[in-house]
């Protein structure tokens, strides 16, 4: 099942999450939470056993006008380890990337996956998630009026991931570019090698741990995909022959190393 950034969750186990001990208790807790805070939403079970939360958000803006937004929340097979997904199931908003919809079905891209605020053990996690969804639709209402997304948003596509990684590197875009071949997996750098950042220090004591942390948060597949355009630009600009060779290697790796993100 795709999450907000389009990645895939774990293979669904045979027993549904809500049939297991911890999951069952979480469902009871979440149901009470929903009844108190979002009484217009109700739990439903899909034909395949997937748990859904379906209903309307009645969003009232400051002048008292209420907009009804029909939504569907899909719970991942390993909920609450993985976050739920929110769908706009009405026809008020055009499901386009500029409105931060993942697809025509209305999957809401609430955040870039590594930015996720989801905390599996947080018992108010679902309420917080729904507040995020409500505010996402409040911003849709603003977009209707201004045609501009209100407030900060990640750039679309690979650039969104690059922004995240640049922030992880303290906003140093030059550093990010110097590490791009490592991120894109076209350059293997050992801990005892000089760090690609050009500091003169060993990679193992310079940026190795930061690169590993970024890999862990973003996932290797998305890291490679995100940095492919940068490496592409760099090598094609500097050495077209080598560039074409490297790109074919990257392409081959991309196709063979794509694994579900954990």
């Amino acid at each position, binding site marked *: 099942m795709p999450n907000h950034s389009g990645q895939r969750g774990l293979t669904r186990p045979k027993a549904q999450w809500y049939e297991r001990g911890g999951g069952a208790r979480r469902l009871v807790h979440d149901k009470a939470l929903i009844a108190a*805070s979002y009484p217009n939403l109700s739990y439903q079970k899909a034909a395949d056993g997937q748990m859904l939360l379906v209903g309307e958000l009645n969003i*009232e803006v*400051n002048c008292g006008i209420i907009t009804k937004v029909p939504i569907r929340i899909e719970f991942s097979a390993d909920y609450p380890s993985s976050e739920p997904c929110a769908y706009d199931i009405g026809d008020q908003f055009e499901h386009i990337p500029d409105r931060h919809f993942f697809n025509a079905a209305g999957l809401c891209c609430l955040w870039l996956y590594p930015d996720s605020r989801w905390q599996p053990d947080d018992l108010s996690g679902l309420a917080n998630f729904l*507040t*995020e969804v*409500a*505010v996402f639709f409040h911003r849709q209402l603003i977009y209707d009026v201004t045609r501009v997304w209100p*407030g900060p948003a*990640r750039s679309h596509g690979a650039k969104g991931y690059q922004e995240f990684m640049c922030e992880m590197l303290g906003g140093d875009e030059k550093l990010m570019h110097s590490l791009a071949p490592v991120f894109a997996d076209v350059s293997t750098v050992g801990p005892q090698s000089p760090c690609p950042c050009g500091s003169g220090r060993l990679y193992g004591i310079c940026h190795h741990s930061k690169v590993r942390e970024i890999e862990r948060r973003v996932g290797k597949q998305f890291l490679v995909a995100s940095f492919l355009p940068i490496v592409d630009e760099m090598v094609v600009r500097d050495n077209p022959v080598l560039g074409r060779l490297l790109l074919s290697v990257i392409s081959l790796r991309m196709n063979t190393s794509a694994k579900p993100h954990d």
Partner: protein
Amino acid sequence: MSWNINTSRARVEEYIQNMGDIYIEPLDREANLDSLLTPTNCRDIYGAHVYAQVSNFACLASSLTDEDEYKRMIQALHIYQREVARIVESNAIFDGFRVHFQGSKLHALFYRPIRNPRAIATRAVLLQLVLKDFVTNVFNPAFSIDDFKIAGGTDIGNAIGTSNGIKGDRELLFIGSPANYAAKIVSDDWKMRLTERVYAELPADLQNLCFECGEGIYQLIGLHLIALNDLLDKYGIGWSREDSASRIESDKASSPLSIIKFSSADTLIRLDDLSIHNSKRVEAASVFADVSGFTRYIDHAERDGRVTDALKVFHVIRRELATVIKVDFDGIRIQYQGDRVQGLLHLPKDDQSSIALKAVRMAAAMQSSMGIIKQSLWGIQELTLAVGVDFGTTLVSKLGQHAYRDRICLGEPVEMAARNEEKCEGNQIGIGSAVYDALPKQVQAPFTYSRSVQCYVATDLDAYKLGLIEDAIAYDHQKGVYVQPGAILKINSEEVPNAQPFRPARPYAP
């Protein structure tokens, strides 16, 4: 304090429920209009409506900085209004009816002798000639602070007289084309104008003083004193320059500069407290809201025999717009001017940005209220609201005759706000650059400069849209919003009780 759809809807329903039946009868005998007319007891009055404006006052009220000069301007305005009111209303002079002053613009009505178009038109036109002569040859020599000039307009026909119905604060309102059109033909080139309908009723000697200056519009030529006096004698108008000059000197003696006081205002101005002894000079936003197409709507209603319904609509709109000004935005409802409402916002003191934003919010709220009224009353889909706004130095006072002191709200921003409203079409809000420049850029966005209107114009901007635009500011500044979950999920950029602050994540898209 802001506009809310539920509150507005409840108010409109209450106005409709509590209005009572409206009666409109022809005015067929002389009566005291001040006591006769109420919101439900109305009269169909055949008469000539005269508007006469000395626009120098507005300019002076905004530009004079010297305290003594400002006092002299207030004194001049006070005495001008007193004398003009006497000229209009004195039995020995014109025996007309002074409706009110709109700033320095006189609105007078001639309806006596009843159903005597020629006598009524004659008096209306002669009043214009007298006022022109008075300003040029009596008032200007008496007050050397400026070269005052006057422009005017007159139309004749049937208009419905009614009132706002507020005890102690009664304002008479005239709805219909002559009251509307007479004001529209007042030019800014210091001419006295009349409509073809007035011209057609004039005796030949007065017709000879007119020439056609536009389609259906005539202009009066200037007259030498001897010719004017001959006409006044002929038609029994007992005015003379000497008498006016004498009364002005007497007024000067009774209203010396030493008693004239003005100040700024830290708290909401109470109009009843104002007088020549206590005027206010404030940095304020003026707002005019006018129902576009109302005169045409009334004309159609008369044709279809449903004028009382139309008048009900008028009173509902009038009351709701005034309530938006007073209650929703803590402003001052200065005046009703026919189907137009004038409001003023002057707090927080000298805070141009806050006042400008509040004025735009109020304008948008008026548009929303108009939408509510259109949902609540049948057959008024054609009616729309045009709103004009501007900001600057404004004089607020109550001046003129002791028993009938008029609310005065005077200044260039007042004139510009009125002009912006007049130039805008229905569903539009026109704002001057002083307002536009003081707005946050997100609120500026729906406004575009219109060369034809010569101000910034937003179309279809209402309280809902403006509220969301302001919420966008909170997101853009990364301040977040306040969220109150529940069956109704309240999301607001301003802090509200029981709501939790929430800063959303940055969304993404593939």
